């Protein structure tokens, strides 16, 4: 299917701050900036990957998009409409168009609800079909996610399925409404590698079949490269690099992305593969708990960034700027591209998923 230029989702300056309640002992309430000024678009029919280490705010972005949370600041648009103010019928329509596949298939299915009921529930909620043809629709969808013969699964309960099978059920449940946008939050992080590959193929098939756009959240660049058309690399809530996935993997320009590539497990003849070495073994101290805490602007990657220069990086937040059309990074000192191209793409070396 074609990825068109049209945007289905637009994040415009989205910030999400979690406030933990003031406890008995500390008067001031702690604030966690989970997402800072996120601006990005997802195109129709595209699989957009959001990559970053644990706690970087990926899930937060996904939860904002499916309206499980509300942004503290900024606007999120679906098909051009601001979703933050939806109510009543419009909200219900939104709920029909945007679905989510959760990280943990052991937790995302109600243990007391059979597979048939679980997959059928969205149809019931949105009044699609009738008691006669819903069963057919459910069976059809179960077959599409590779649970065959589907009749065998209808009466089962989640505990009678393997993790991979449960995740397939979760995908069937998400896809049965034929949504236009699906958020898949690390759908395979609880599964082993061979099952993961099957799940990825199901997602690709779903995109092909239903022209659904997918926000694919992962901590693995390799999984993202396999699946995604474009990637966003996020660190501590800030989008660091944005571009076509091939380009980002082959020619990462942000020190943090480069560090992520370094961390990938590699197979084959990798002796000659370039190692960026942009990650400091030990964090720079002082900047986050020095004086003026919370007010001072600095690059979030500064404490761990080797190429950083303190006079700049510790005193201002770099802006997300285009290097070439469609490829942007947030860094004062983008690495020279020529440096990596010659060595990074050895054909005999593979990144593991």
């Amino acid at each position: 299917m074609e990825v068109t230029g049209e945007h289905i989702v637009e994040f415009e300056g989205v910030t999400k701050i979690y406030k933990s309640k003031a406890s008995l002992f500390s008067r001031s309430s702690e604030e966690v900036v989970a997402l800072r000024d996120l601006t990005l678009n997802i195109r129709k029919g595209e699989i957009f990957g959001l990559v970053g280490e644990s706690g970087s705010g990926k899930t937060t972005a996904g939860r904002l998009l499916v309206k499980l949370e509300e942004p503290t600041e900024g606007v999120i648009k679906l098909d051009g409409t601001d979703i933050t103010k939806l109510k009543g019928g419009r909200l219900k329509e939104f709920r029909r168009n945007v679905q989510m596949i959760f990280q943990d298939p052991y937790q995302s299915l109600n243990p007391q609800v059979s597979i048939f009921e679980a997959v059928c529930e969205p149809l019931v909620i949105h009044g699609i079909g009738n008691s006669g043809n819903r069963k057919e629709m459910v069976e059809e969808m179960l077959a599409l996610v590779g649970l065959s013969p589907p009749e065998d699964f209808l009466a089962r309960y989640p505990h009678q399925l393997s993790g991979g099978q449960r995740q397939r059920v979760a995908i069937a449940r998400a896809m049965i409404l034929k949504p236009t946008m699906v958020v898949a939050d690390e759908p395979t992080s609880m599964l082993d590698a061979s099952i993961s590959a099957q799940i990825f193929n199901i997602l690709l098939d779903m995109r092909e079949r239903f022209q659904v756009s997918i926000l694919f959240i992962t901590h693995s660049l390799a999984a993202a490269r396999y699946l995604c058309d474009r990637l966003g690399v996020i660190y501590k809530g800030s989008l660091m690099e944005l571009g076509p996935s091939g380009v980002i993997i082959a020619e990462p320009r942000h020190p943090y992305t480069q560090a992520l590539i370094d961390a990938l497990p590699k197979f084959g003849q990798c002796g000659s593969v370039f190692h960026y070495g942009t990650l400091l073994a030990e964090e720079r101290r002082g900047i986050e708990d020095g004086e003026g805490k919370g007010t001072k602007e600095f690059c979030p990657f500064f404490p761990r960034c080797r190429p950083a220069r303190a006079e700049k990086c510790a005193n201002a937040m770099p802006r997300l700027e285009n290097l070439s059309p469609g490829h942007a990074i947030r860094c004062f000192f983008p690495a020279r591209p020529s440096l990596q191209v010659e060595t990074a793409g050895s054909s005999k070396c593979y990144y593991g998923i």
Partner: protein
Amino acid sequence: MAGSVQKRAGFKGAFLEGWEIFKESLLGRIGLTLILIFALMAVASFIPPMIDPMYHPMHGVDPEISFSTGPSLRHWLGTDFMGRDILSQLLAGARVAFMVGVSAAFMSIFLGTSIGMIAGYMGKAVDTMLMRLADMIMVMPTLLVVLILSSLFGQLNIWTIVLIIALFRWPGVSRVIRSQTLSLKTRPFIEAARVAGASHFRIIFRHIMPNVLPLSFLYMTFRVTSAIIIEAALAFLGFGDPGTVSWGMMLQWVWKTGHMFKAPYWLLPPGICISLITLSFYMLGRAMDEVLDPRLRKEADAS
């Protein structure tokens, strides 16, 4: 890990699994046996009046006896002060105990479960309001309230008493169900239902309720116990429904007519029955607790 949490599923599977554990419990077996015996008594209470109207627990009077007599062939447990058969009164008392215990418990559990789920799920102002209400009711002693009400409105009908007990005994249940709901609320399958567009009503009754219901049933057994005790106490103090023969009422007759220390055949049966039936529901509850407890712990581990 998460996998172990999901062992139960569906009511049938959960029930069978629970029954396996329950069967192993001595307390549970004794409790259940006693309850069955009392249930048989309640059913049997319809028989004596059919044999002879003089065995009617309320209106039947043996024409040849006008004072309390001990056990005899004609009256196996003897008669009360006006010649009514004590055994048929005892059987009728079992019927009343079940009626009061089960219906009051059922109503208070129904209220407590609904209110607990709504408070826990809705949170914020609704939660605060409902829980303050629960606190207020919880500190009011039920017995005292019913006593005051019946001294204001005269003798209360048995169903009114049941209703009052139910209205005053839900807060404890609602607190437990609320905290269970709070932990369920953040579970991904609830969020998955929200994303699918499920209404609050659907989430509460379709997704939360099946997961808290086992706990509600557990509390129901304890509520049966307390309802029976409250009714017995009321009746003994003379505030029971004068139209029913409950065990508390029998004790009150023993006391009022001055037979307390003269007629053990009359005093002991209702006294023992009250103790045993409350004990048996309590034992049933404890056994159910054992069934549920490891699961609750497992769920706590997972979240």
